[in-house]
């Protein structure tokens, strides 16, 4: 009997301890230790405070301003080939790298561990196959590991590459490896950047601020004044995701919307659905959902459907399952994108450099958003649920089968 009550006390104490911790954290107004932390129900919103918490330490005003300008700028280049377009290009001379065909291209890839990179990687391979002057294409997959990518880059330098394309796993750690390769071979960096300007060109879409702002501005426009917004993020502390949220925060802070929660989903559909379900219960009604990535957007939509409520304005991404749901359920939605067609551009850039043609020093690709008006053009029937519509791959040989679709 003695041991029985001991155990009881211990378990009870444990439960009390955890709930007590829960209680005190909410009593404090938005602790600075958790910049993107959630707002508790007891928290009172002061003037100018829209429940969005402190600004991310990744926020850089100058970058934000630059992206806001680029979002509205007209890109140069062929309108039907956005992967060849660039915004405000500062062209540089590449005559020094001019060489006769055939060419050997090399590619150090950060990873192919998510659907976005899968679609991009297939698109890149198809682009390479288009060009007969590319005799060899050597690609190494770093499997999401910095150390492997550092040795991959070193290994590729000994393979006689004419151009080295790098998609860095992380920005800071890969910088020395890229700097080391620059003197030996022309380097092209795309997707994430590096902290050196030694690559011949750096290719990227407009960026994360533009993504986050696009979605947030849509909600500010569509959700009635004072509406309750739930923001769903994957993880804290990842630069490309922090920029998306920090731009959304700027938009929400200057609006009259009420951000009732900022939650982390780990990119998990079940967790997303549960969180949205909890918020619907807690507030009775949620008037808008902002997401930093579209992977779990369908789960969020389903949470409203399963609760028997109309789906409020929401943003997803250009993933097929979301576009399909949007079209079927007639959602009020927008899909900002981080286009996978950017995987075509490095190959095109490599050939331009080897032919001595000019390329932009920073190749800013346009980053369109899918809206109600152009949804029908991007929603392609027969593609798999995790396909990305902005692959720019429709004109490539092997489409749609190579991308898992059926014609």
């Amino acid at each position, binding site marked *: 009997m003695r*041991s*029985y009550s*001991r*155990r*009881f006390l*211990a*378990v*009870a104490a*444990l*439960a009390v301890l*955890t*709930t007590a911790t*829960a*209680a005190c*954290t*909410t009593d404090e107004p938005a602790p600075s230790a*958790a910049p993107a*932390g*959630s*707002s*508790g*129900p007891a*928290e009172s919103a002061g003037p100018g405070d829209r429940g969005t918490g402190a600004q991310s330490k990744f926020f850089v005003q100058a970058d934000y301003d630059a992206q806001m300008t680029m979002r509205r700028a007209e890109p140069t280049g062929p309108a039907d080939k956005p992967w060849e377009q660039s915004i405000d290009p500062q062209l540089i001379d590449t005559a020094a790298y001019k060489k006769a065909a055939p060419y050997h291209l090399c590619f150090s890839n950060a990873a*192919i*561990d*998510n*659907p976005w*990179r*899968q*679609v991009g990687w297939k698109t890149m391979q198809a682009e390479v196959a288009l060009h007969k002057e590319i005799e060899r294409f050597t690609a190494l997959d770093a499997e999401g590991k910095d150390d492997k990518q550092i040795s991959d880059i070193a290994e590729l330098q000994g393979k006689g590459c004419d151009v080295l394309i790098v998609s860095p796993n992380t920005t800071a750690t890969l910088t020395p490896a890229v700097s080391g390769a620059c003197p030996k071979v022309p380097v092209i960096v795309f997707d994430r950047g590096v902290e050196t300007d030694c690559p011949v060109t750096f290719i990227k879409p407009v960026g994360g601020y533009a993504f986050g702002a696009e979605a947030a501005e849509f909600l500010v426009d569509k959700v009635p004044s004072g509406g309750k917004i739930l923001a769903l993020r994957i993880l*804290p502390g990842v630069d490309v995701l922090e920029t998306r949220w920090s731009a959304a925060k700027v938009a929400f802070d200057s609006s009259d919307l009420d951000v009732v*929660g900022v*939650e*982390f*989903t*780990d*990119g*998990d*559909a*079940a*967790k*997303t*659905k*549960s*969180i949205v*379900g*909890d918020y619907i*219960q*807690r507030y009775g009604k949620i008037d808008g959902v902002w997401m930093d990535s579209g992977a779990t957007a*369908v*789960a969020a939509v*389903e949470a409203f459907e*399963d609760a028997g409520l109309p789906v409020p304005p929401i943003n997803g991404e250009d993933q097929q*399952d979301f576009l399909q749901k949007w079209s079927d359920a007639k959602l009020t939605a927008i899909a900002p994108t981080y286009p996978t067609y950017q995987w075509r551009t490095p190959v095109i850039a490599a050939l331009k450099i080897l032919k001595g043609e000019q390329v932009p020093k920073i190749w800013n690709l346009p980053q369109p958003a899918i809206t109600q008006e152009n949804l029908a053009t991007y929603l392609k029937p027969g593609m*798999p*649920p*995790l396909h990305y519509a902005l692959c720019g791959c429709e004109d490539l040989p092997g489409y749609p089968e190579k991308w*898992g679709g059926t014609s």
Partner: protein
Amino acid sequence: MRRALPIFVVLAGLLIAIAVVNPYFLEPPAFLAFVKRAAPLVILAAGQYFVIVSGEFDLSVGSLVTAEVVIAARLIDGSAEATWPVLALLLVLGLLVGLVNGIVTTIFRVPSFITTLGMLLILSGAVFLWTGGAPRGALSPEFRELGRGSLGPVPWSVLILVAVVAAAVYAMRAGFGHTLIAAGDNDRAAALSGVRLARVRTAAFMISGLSAAVAAILLGGFAGVSAQAGNGLEFQAITAVVLGGVVLGGGRGSVVAAMAGAFTLEALFTLLNLYGISGALEPAVQGVIIIAAVALGAVRFPRRRTAAAS
């Protein structure tokens, strides 16, 4: 049953705490939604209980859930006719993985910690290799109905959960349950008194595999295809079982308490969410629970008289 009491008191306390923040919680639709969400974890905890009480571990259930969801999506590919055969296949696959875990552990005498950790890695590696990180195909609406839909006001997953609870309680009251506890408490004594250890423990692993298959069907139905469907579930299930007062190392604890432990864990997560605490705290809470519960068990251990309860 008497020993299961503390966890029920804690569970009741948590439910009341949730109801204080959100009075709507105790109304039938909201409460059923809670039970529905908890169902996969409760079923996994029941399966894990059988393995733990027999003195072993099953770390492979999380990646088994992921593998099952991904396989289901690929094979069904949105077709209604394929739904029932694939459901049957998933259950068989769960049993098969359990059988392999059981045989490797009992016949080849590889510690279950290593066997099932190996199985975890094999399954997650195989899923990754097969899908390359992007699952293909889609689950049919019929498949999703089990995790998403309901019969009148009662979700299917709640009905399935009730059936699982009944089956688990029955199994533990039957001779199988008694031999399982005997095997976990003192395997040498059990073997000398005629218990076929290998057979009993292998059956426990198969039950765990089966529970992972059922959980996968419910989770896939609830949330759809995802290559992360089962992430971390093995630790949640073990935490739930330990929270229910089941002793790691086997021989003590009740299956009802283990399932109540799963409800408690889910209630705790719900409460943390209601108080606006980031999900990042969940693994930390689980870690505290596992260590605290095992530490308490170790302190208590020499003074306790062996007892079995169901």
